[in-house]
């Protein structure tokens, strides 16, 4: 292996499990991919929605802690969740959760060895996007019907 011309490439140097040196690229990142492609768009969105959902789970922590604390703390949570900002956050979280779940199902199908043909990949990617919109709206229609 020749000496890397760019010092940043030194970070990519690794070894295979048999000890032979190998230069590995970093994972797909925003600069290297056309983000309007179905394949890379759904892939990075799966990560972004996963991270967003992880942050959104803090609302669950707050809700549970307030429920255990008392009526005052719980009223604060209810005030926030039913405010405009709160509803907007919950709506976005619902969309992120549905997207991550549906894209995750697609990943599980891949893990099981199904759906690798490019036309199938395109089709399931479109399904994920359409189903996210449908399920998110459906969830909130039910929520608003129950709430009123």
């Amino acid at each position, binding site marked *: 292996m020749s000496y890397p011309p760019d010092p940043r490439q030194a970070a990519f140097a690794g070894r295979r499990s*048999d000890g032979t040196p190998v230069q590995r690229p*970093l*994972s797909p990142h925003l600069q290297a991919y056309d983000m309007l492609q179905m394949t890379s768009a759904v892939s990075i969105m799966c990560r972004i929605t996963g991270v967003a*959902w992880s942050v959104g*789970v803090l609302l669950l*922590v707050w809700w549970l802690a307030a429920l255990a604390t008392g009526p005052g703390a719980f009223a604060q949570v209810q005030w926030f969740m039913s405010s405009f900002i709160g509803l907007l956050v919950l709506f976005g979280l619902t969309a992120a959760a549905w997207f991550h779940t549906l894209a995750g199902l697609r990943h599980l199908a891949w893990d099981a060895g199904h759906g690798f043909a490019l036309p199938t990949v395109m089709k399931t990617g479109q399904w994920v996007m359409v189903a996210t919109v449908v399920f998110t709206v459906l*969830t909130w229609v039910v929520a608003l019907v129950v709430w009123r």
Partner: protein
Amino acid sequence: MNEMSKTNADVMRTPLGRVRGLGSAKSGTHHWWMQRVTSIALLPLTLWFVVSMLSLAGASFAQTRAFLAWPVNAVLMLALIGLTFHHIAAGLQVVVEDYVRKDMQRIAALLVIKGGCWLMALVCAFAVLRVAFT
């Protein structure tokens, strides 16, 4: 001879030894597999959670506490908490490992993720148990 010179780092290790060592992370596919296991378990649990939250929309403090105090709901919520934070920790770890290049920054981020997930999970579990037992 050429083959030998290529394997300079692990030249004394047999293929079986490498398999038993389970690679550089020493855990084989465990991390990857647990991500899949938790994701499958979270499918029905999250569906239960969403339906529960929908049914609780606009519910009072007492009604919400009664819901969570019911043993089935308390146990399902504890399962949801444990699996959710395991899945979050595993997922965020992969994101950090992929994008944070400097060793110290990466290790620090991984420790914050692991510690944060444990703490948040314990806060949630404690809250559920307190509601269930008081």
